[in-house]
């Protein structure tokens, strides 16, 4: 978190020139304020969605996945679509916390906390989807390699086994990273809250943080190492997910660009989800001072860039499908364009490739209602991307006699809505009980917070001590 003074040509990242104490007070006041009726009703609503989804999940598990709309050619449907969708959502958090950290992108400090939280919640939803799709989720431990008297081992050649490792590693590292980043802020809250119980809880969670130089030193080393470990995860997790498709020899699934294409799509969809929720959170929690139009501008640029990468991959797949001269390959792609699922394909193209083009314009990148709408389009488009990949390749396979069509039943739809319920409920709980903005990190980017030989005469006292002020 060592950052330099910025050149005068750059826009400020925190508006209103608050003092370091103001920042602490402002963020902590969200946690300190009384729980409002509106908040309870919102949590009640999202909780009800989650409960409905859990009921559908219960019904699936007790009856069997026959209650879903899967059929003979289409063995994967909404289950895997939702799994890939949710895993993808998580990638924005990891990119912001790991890669943007290594690239010293100061603007990440205002959004990293909530994006990382979303990563964890999204992976929880993804795990729900993939576990329920196994059919007998109570035997989930069969997926783990452990010595047992039956001498049964997982099939290490199966990409589904790699998924287990990839997703579990991802969840563990993301959770660790998030928690380590939270420690100084939890200590700030411990010192700030008034109720005894809350003091005890935050005190316990802050692991005895005092804000001493020694603690900061260890913290920064740990944070750097976790950022280093998380960086390959941004690429590896979705690459492994893409292997689920590519190592098979289905036309439309087996193509070499899938790993980076999936990673770009994951970051794209993740940023869209972060955008959707942050636009709301910024309004409701009044965070305009910290999450500025500059932040949104940058996020929209990333969405435009990753959206173009996804568009590049769509185009490349088409070009090579024709160039390969493989009739099955080109047929599958024509079928995407004009076949039974053409509506899904064109929804995907419109949402993912066409709609973000508006972000070429700075005015659009700073128009909050517009970016909210576009972010929802992208969420929809990225869901349809996974659905298109899965359904179009499966529903017309090599044997025309078995061709079919797939549509979900109410159970699959309910489970999907339920995952949104879980995701939103967890996010609401997070935004109330945990500092939604990384207090210590935002302080670190305030003017004068960093030692600098050039400005020494102006901010001679400025150092990390000032940043830790809230923790004392």
């Amino acid at each position, binding site marked *: 978190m060592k950052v*330099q*003074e910025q*050149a005068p040509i750059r826009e400020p990242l925190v508006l209103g020139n608050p003092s370091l104490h103001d920042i602490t007070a402002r963020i902590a006041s969200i946690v300190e304020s009384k729980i409002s009726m509106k908040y309870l009703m919102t949590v009640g609503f999202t909780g009800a969605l989650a409960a409905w989804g859990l009921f559908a999940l219960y019904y699936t598990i007790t009856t069997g996945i026959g209650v879903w709309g899967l059929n003979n050619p289409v063995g994967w449907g909404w289950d895997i679509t939702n799994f890939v969708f949710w895993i993808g959502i998580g990638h924005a958090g990891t990119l912001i916390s790991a890669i943007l950290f290594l690239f010293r992108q100061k603007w990440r400090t205002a959004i990293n906390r909530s994006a990382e939280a979303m990563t964890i919640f999204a992976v929880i939803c993804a795990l729900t989807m993939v576990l329920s799709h196994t059919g007998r989720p109570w035997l989930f431990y069969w997926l783990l390699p452990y010595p047992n008297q039956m001498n049964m081992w997982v099939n290490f050649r199966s990409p589904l086994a790699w998924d287990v490792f990839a997703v579990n590693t991802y969840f563990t590292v993301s959770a660790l990273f998030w928690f380590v980043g939270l420690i100084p802020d939890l200590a700030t809250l411990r010192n700030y809250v008034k109720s005894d119980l809350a003091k005890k809880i935050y005190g316990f969670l802050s692991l005895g943080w005092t804000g001493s130089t020694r603690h900061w030193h260890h913290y920064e080393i740990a944070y750097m190492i976790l950022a280093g470990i998380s960086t390959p995860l941004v690429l590896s997790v979705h690459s492994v997910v893409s292997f689920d498709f590519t190592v098979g020899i289905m036309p439309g699934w087996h193509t070499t660009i899938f790993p980076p294409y999936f990673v770009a799509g994951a970051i794209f969809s993740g940023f869209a989800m972060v955008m959707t929720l942050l636009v709301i959170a910024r309004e409701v929690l009044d965070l305009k001072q910290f999450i500025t139009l500059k932040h949104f501008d940058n996020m929209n640029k990333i969405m435009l860039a990753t959206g173009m990468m996804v568009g590049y991959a769509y185009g490349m797949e088409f070009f090579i499908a024709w160039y390969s001269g493989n009739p099955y390959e080109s047929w599958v792609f024509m079928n995407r364009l004009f076949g039974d699922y053409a509506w899904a394909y064109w929804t995907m193209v419109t949402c993912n490739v066409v709609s973000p083009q508006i972000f070429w314009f700075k005015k659009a990148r700073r128009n909050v209602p517009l970016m909210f709408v576009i972010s929802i389009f992208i969420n929809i488009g990225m869901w349809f991307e996974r659905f298109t990949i899965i359904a179009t390749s499966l529903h017309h396979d090599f044997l025309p006699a078995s061709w079919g069509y797939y549509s979900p039943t109410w159970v699959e739809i309910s489970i999907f809505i339920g995952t949104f319920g879980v995701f939103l409920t967890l996010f609401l709980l997070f935004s109330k009980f945990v500092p939604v903005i990384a207090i210590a990190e935002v302080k670190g980017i305030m003017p004068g917070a960093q030692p600098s030989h050039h400005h020494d005469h102006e901010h001679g006292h400025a150092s990390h001590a000032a940043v830790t002020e809230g923790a004392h």
Partner: protein
Amino acid sequence: MSQLVNLGSSPLIGKIQRYGMILTVLGAVGLGAAYAVGGGLQRMMGDYLLGFWYFAGISVTMVFFSALQYLTRAGWSSSIRRIAENFAGMVPFMLVGFLPVIINLFSHSSIYEWTHESALTDPILIHKAGYLNTQFLIIRLTLYALLWFGMYRVIVGNSIKQDTMPGDHRPTEKNWTLAAPMVLIYALSISFCSFDLLMSLEPHWFSTMFGVYTFAGHFVAAISVITLMTVALYRGGHLKGYIRDEHFHDLGKLMFAFSVFWTYIAFSQYFIIWYANLPEETVYFTARTSHGWQYMGIALVIMHFIVPFMVLLRQDVKRKTNILVAAAIIILISHYIDLAWIILPAVGHVSGSEGMMFGWQELTGWIFFAGLFMMLAARAYKKNSAMAVNDPVLAESKEYVV
């Protein structure tokens, strides 16, 4: 700082120019010898393509590197960005570089199998003739050359214009606006050019990842060249205070990250094809893992991944210039092996050579273009300031701490 930094008369630039001249002459003689006594036209053309695409790819990627710094409004790199811009001197001459390739298309024994008469009876090549035909290829190559020249004019042109305009940031702001479309042009042109020049050497084979693969190699090679020049400037005592340990550390990180990125892309491409085991795709790798070519493949794993990874992993070594230079050289050698591994087996197959075709001849094209690359860089250093002295974020590059 707004005084122009002209290093035209410095011994370093003189040396680069001198060695460049020697290498160009050596390479030209070598190419001639390769044609006359070293194996004929096809082999010489393969060697030419290898050398040309090695340095053409790096040069265009240098413009991309600069555009990327503008696009991300990078402060750290503003003092070394001009290195990339000065090493892009080949870009305006791309059409000249393409010419021998174009002329070769009309030869009965061109290195591209799809131009041969046998292609007329090959059903797959008949299918591809809409894309792989001489006229369309010439149009495409001309288009790439023009697009790259345009990119060069915009990005490098504005960057240099800023040098003489202290206080007026319009050229920089122009680049900030235009960097994004330039990056887009680069992404598409470098992908399709690599399809046209390299992938179509194996006209039956295809891979959607191929454009990303060649990009990854060019990018890490370009960063290695920038690192070498940064160290050379530093040791020559130039740009004092503007080239710091922090820059070495950052360049080391980029070399580390992008050699891993290349590995990721290379592994994914290999792995997906290997696992699916479809003959129409494995043909590419079976040709490259037999007859001695497999040693190049193994060398790539070691030199393009394991060695740079092990050498550059530690934090402190990224600040030691000796080790950075060693890592950069290893990466540049592996980039050569990478392109040789793509190009030479195909050319060897076309020219009917049994077994591995690799000898002194294969170095001649590389030496020739290495010389031109250096001479054009020296020319740029004589003409332009060695640093973007009026860049509005230059101060950040002097102050930042990793």
